[in-house]
């Protein structure tokens, strides 16, 4: 068997096992079990982290606008999917709101309930992504000319501005102002999240391995050299920015599904920082790393380390385990990774590359003998 074939099989097996595990979790545990919650949240974070990695890790554009694009996606999803009958109570201060249709209901009308509403929900996610992409195009016109840290701070500022607009009462008939959007349909189980995010990440992977992906990496490594090789800098940067924002938008929509209610408040710069740190833990430039890190991070912060907050961890009772200790431990780990393991868990390696290392080691051992 050739190495390439081996790798493909290895990857396929790993992914299949993971998917099977997820289905098994769904079948055995109720939808409100913490394991399901963790998988859902981690999947959403994984998608957004990968989209951020595409921009920050593969193209070298240091953007901190992720939260803003997620906000767009989340609101688009909520606004388009709240059932018409419930709009009067959700938009209680705005006379039922300006939009009086719901995509899942429209599609349920001629595709049947289950299929139709699923199609409607997916379409709403897509609209969210497209909206985020459109906004990225517009904001990209001025800000993509900026250099690294200026770009970071400009995109950060943009996300803050967006948040103010969504909470503005004048837009209330659409966004519900400062009030929550709720009562929209969501997927109760974890598997749809995993499949959806998995497909999105696969698309991003295809993109990265294409000529575009190589162009992105060339820009990251050396802008001037890339330009000299005939890569249109402005066009490729804009493309990376728009694509990344598109997936962040979809991630935002899925985040809305996970949360069950939408408000602008969670989409603060803290969210962006959190995702950036996940990307760093996983390894800047590794899709596998980002996914792995998302699961590790969410798993430990939401489940594993909860004991650190409530006074009992590893069977030890201690007064230092009080509220907030969990996040202290997590952030110390993050700082250690940032300072001492700068490549993160995966460096720039992907899942199939894990085979390489093992075979290299084997070769070394063979040589030793």
């Amino acid at each position, binding site marked *: 068997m050739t190495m390439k074939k081996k790798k493909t099989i290895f990857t396929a097996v790993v992914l299949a096992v993971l998917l099977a595990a997820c289905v098994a979790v769904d079948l055995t545990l109720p939808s409100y079990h913490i394991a399901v*919650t963790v998988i859902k949240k981690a999947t959403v974070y994984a998608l957004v982290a990968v989209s951020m990695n595409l921009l920050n890790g593969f193209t070298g554009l240091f953007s901190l606008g992720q939260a803003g694009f997620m906000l767009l996606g989340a609101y688009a999803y909520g606004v388009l999917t709240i059932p018409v009958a419930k709009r009067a109570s959700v938009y209680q201060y705005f006379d039922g709101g300006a939009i009086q249709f719901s995509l899942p209901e429209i599609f349920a009308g001629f595709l049947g309930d289950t299929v139709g509403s699923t199609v409607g929900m997916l379409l709403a996610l897509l609209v969210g992504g497209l909206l985020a992409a459109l906004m990225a195009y517009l904001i990209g016109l001025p800000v993509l000319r900026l250099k690294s840290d200026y770009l970071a701070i400009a995109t950060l500022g943009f996300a803050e501005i967006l948040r*103010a607009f969504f909470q503005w009462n004048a837009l209330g008939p659409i966004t519900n102002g400062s*009030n929550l959007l*709720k009562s929209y349909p969501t997927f109760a189980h974890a598997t749809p999240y995993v499949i959806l995010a998995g497909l999105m990440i696969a698309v991003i992977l295809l993109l990265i391995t294409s000529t575009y992906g190589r162009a992105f990496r060339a820009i990251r490594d050396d802008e001037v050299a890339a330009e000299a090789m005939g890569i249109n800098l402005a066009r490729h940067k804009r493309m990376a920015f728009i694509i990344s924002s598109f997936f962040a938008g979809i991630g935002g929509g899925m985040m809305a599904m996970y*949360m069950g209610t939408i408000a602008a408040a969670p989409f603060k710069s803290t969210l962006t920082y959190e995702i950036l740190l996940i990307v760093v833990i996983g390894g800047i430039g590794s899709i596998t790393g980002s996914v792995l890190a998302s699961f590790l991070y969410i798993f430990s912060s939401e489940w594993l*380390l909860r004991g650190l907050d409530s006074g009992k*961890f590893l069977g030890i009772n201690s007064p230092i385990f009080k509220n907030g200790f969990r996040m202290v431990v997590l952030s110390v780990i993050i700082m250690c990774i940032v300072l001492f393991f700068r490549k993160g868990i995966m460096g720039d390696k992907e899942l199939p590359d894990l085979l390489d290392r093992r075979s290299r080691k084997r070769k070394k051992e063979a040589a030793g003998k």
Partner: protein
Amino acid sequence: MKKLFAFVLALVMALSLAACGGDKSSDSSTPAASGDKVVKIGVFEPQTGDNGAGGKQEILGMQYANTVQPTVEIGGETYQVQLEIVDNRTTAENGPSAAAELVNRNVSIVLGSYGSGVSMAGGKVFEEAGIPAIGVTCTNPQVTADCSVYHRICFLDPFQGTVLANYAFNELGVKTAYVLGMLGSDYDQGLMYYFKEAFEALGGTVKSEDFPEGSANFVSYINNAKAEGAGVIFAPVSINYAQLIIEAAAAQGFEGALLGSDTWDNNMVIESAKGKDTQIFVTTFYQEGGNADFDNGIKEWINANADAKTNNGGNDMVAAVTAMGYDAYFTALEAIKAAGSTDPKAVLEALPGVTYEGVSGHIEFDDIGDAVRDSAFIKTANTADGVWDFVKVQGVE
């Protein structure tokens, strides 16, 4: 190096997983050893974030109630009541996972939360799990409107907003009101909406403004209110901002009254009003002195318990939310008794029929699950002594 790191990481994970498993078994074995049966009541409250201070006071009421009545009779057997407290960190995005955590701990009924947004976010999870919830001081109509498991024992925003509007217009004789709330807070915006509606219906004019989250300087807002010629500033904001607004109003020499909602009824608010030349009126659920037994009992308990005292803001003043937490606990016990079972489904079925005479008044639920309440207490800040003085009981005509 990296391999070592990965190994250590894996080791830590494995160990802690084992520990988690160990924890669970020890949890269930403790009560079995003492020979008692246990019923768990979930406490879904913020202990951190903007509403952390308020949430902690609400928990105090439940903890005190738990010491007063630590057992419940179910079907002729005595059950120990165990409170399972989870911090929902004030914000809606942490609601679902905190709620899932409670569900995981197999609670029979949930109490909370202080703050409506997080209650709505958690409500979805409780609904899926079929666990009944009693909202203690979440006043937004939306909490119970679209959630089959959520009930509540406090009054609602439309009521509270109208009460304050009536009071300002009729009792204080004010014709222009300035309304200020935080951008992005559904609690603030909801009350502002109902206040404005009621005040304008009475014939007054309202100027309404928002401030962004994290604002610290309210001087310009007070100046705006003065420029509008407002007789009252109605600011249904969380405790932190209430303190800032009082501070700014006093510094700018605002001559009208400040109106606050139930969040303002807190000893940290009265602390910042102390010694300042401002007039403050708030609506609330309970007036200290309303029930002498309860007041004395809880004061004694708070004074004997250093942690409780710290959580109460360093003194033994009884906050209305504490009384509400106390009532919520007993309402939950009534429901469990009526159900005759610790099964959440049975408790959920029994809950709507429960009535209880609490320290904050009679508790009964309507069809939606909201409390049947027709009056609120109005209190004013005695800035000389730093205490709340009772003004009157106000209803809506």
